[in-house]
């Protein structure tokens, strides 16, 4: 037995179980798998990905991040959750995709990498942070002029499963101490107004609805519950 690496095999096993479930489309992560092709298709239709620098903010276990990398983008995924990042890195070994995963907030990362990215995605995250406007501001800093930003907010809600599963650790890192339960629906008009403040042009808004009978998600005109948004950074 080697003592060169200070690792606990039980802890590793826990991460592997989580990684296996996160990437199992029939597990409790099913809703996330259900929406992933839909949101990926939306992004690929509206922005060039091949050869571009893409940042996935709130990448979680890497479902969207890997899809972006498969579309031949050069992708970085950031998240504040240790466990989801471990899951993402473990799965990366299987998929053999080139992705850089880092633990960072959007704001800190923007300070270090201003004007770096062609595309920034921030999906199903804004409703979980106390100050969504600060994230939008960071997205502006991160993008090159003319770069594309994709946002979504989901009210009822694949990601709330992740919070239930991944748990308090995720919350504690995402939110300042003493704050909790930031799950709040952000109206499209509020988000559009925040985007304008930070020099974005709104390109498109589309609803995403879940059909409880067919159990499929579809893009729709109904933005009352879940929606996707595309904006372009136009600082001049």
């Amino acid at each position, binding site marked *: 037995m080697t003592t060169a690496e200070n690792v606990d095999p039980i802890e590793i096993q826990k991460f592997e179980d989580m990684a296996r479930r996160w990437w199992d489309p029939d597990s409790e992560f*099913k809703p996330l798998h259900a929406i992933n092709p839909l949101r990926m298709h939306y992004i690929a239709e509206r922005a060039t990905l091949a050869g571009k620098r893409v940042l996935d903010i709130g990448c979680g276990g890497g479902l969207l991040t890997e899809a972006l990398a498969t579309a031949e983008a050069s992708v970085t995924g950031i998240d504040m959750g240790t466990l989801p990042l471990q899951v993402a890195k473990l799965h990366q070994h299987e998929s053999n995709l080139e992705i850089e995963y880092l633990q960072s907030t959007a704001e800190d990362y923007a300070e270090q990498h201003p004007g770096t990215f062609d595309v920034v995605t921030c999906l199903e995250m804004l409703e979980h942070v106390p100050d969504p406007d600060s994230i939008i501001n960071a997205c502006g800093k991160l993008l090159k002029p003319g770069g594309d930003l994709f946002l979504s907010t989901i009210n009822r809600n694949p990601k709330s499963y992740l919070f239930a599963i991944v748990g308090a650790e995720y919350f504690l890192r995402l939110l300042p101490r003493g704050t909790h339960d930031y799950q709040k629906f952000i109206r499209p008009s509020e988000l559009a107004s925040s985007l304008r403040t930070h020099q974005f042009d709104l390109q498109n808004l589309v609803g995403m609805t879940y059909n*409880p009978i067919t159990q499929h998600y579809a893009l729709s005109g109904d933005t009352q519950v879940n929606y996707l948004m595309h904006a372009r950074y136009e600082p001049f």
Partner: protein
Amino acid sequence: MARYDFVIAGAGLVGLSAALALTRQGLKGLIFDHGLAPSAASGATQVLGLDRSPRVSAINPASVKFLTQLGVAPAFFDQAGCSVSGMTVWDGDGSGELSLPSAGYIIENHRLLNALFNALGQPSIAEALTQQFEVGIVDLQQDDETVSITLTTGETIQSGLLIGADGSASRTRDLLGIQSVAWRYDQTALVCVSETALPHQGIARQSFTPEGPLAFLPLPEPNHSVLVWSSTQAQAQLHCSEKEFAAMASVHSARPLGPVTAIGARAVFPLQQQHAIRYAKGRSVLVGDAAHSIHPLAGQGLNLGFADVVSLSQAIENLRLDQRQSLSEALRRYEAQRRPVNLRMTAATDLLKRVFDPPSPLLRLARSTGMRWLQNQTRLKQALSLAAAGHL
């Protein structure tokens, strides 16, 4: 091949309410009925110089709330129906009487049907719902994902969910192979619009006569009621002269309402109670009379049907929150929620009917004593009123 989220067999009151509840959730569906389209369907005819039909239902406050949520205007109930403030039940020989506070409406079925069709006319709903009339169901097949439904037109359609709202003789229930338990009665219900010498004052009244329960359900006109006589003598009562029939009914109406001074055309329908042994199978489900039909003496049949739809619609809505759960699990939860409640009401109504049925003098004594006793039991009376109001 056409594909829908849901298909509803039966465009009666319960079926239409289900169509509204589900389209309001953003689902797309088809509702069909073997009857005529509503514009061609017969509504009220002139009865005793009034535009009134004897086909009425009692609507409790829970149903009013549900219908309002579906888009029926709150003012509709007071405009179209008669608000009921209480109910009085008495023994035919006048030996016992029970008065209960009550709330709700007596409303003609065709007016409620029109109100629901109007609610379906809202553009967003009309877009999401296809309606077909003079069409029945011939066959159905279901697997894990789909119900395939063959219609009398020869067309086969596919749906994620099939709702059988096609009444007590439900063809959907038969095709699903769901058995039902039936209680047959030796009574037939006779209904007609009637005018009484004294005003009804918004009280629903029921007398337990030797022939069976006789109800006077108030209409908006102060001296007009719908008379419902669940009777062993309905055939004779149907074929005698109006004068003779009015005299028979007057024996029982006399004390609270005075004599029956005029009656409209009489109609009869058979009475039976039945209960399906299950409500859900795969991606198909039964609601309203297709699942359970009860004796009308408690005025609860339609209320139970609406409560079914509330529960079913909630079970489907809950799938949005827990997306791991399957539809068939949701349908089984609906069944688990509704079947015991409906069964209790069916059994209670059957018991009431049987207690008041036999002409034995001893039982009559027990019953009138019981009613006098009940009249003094405030808490028990409250419980009965709550049950009648849909708070079971």
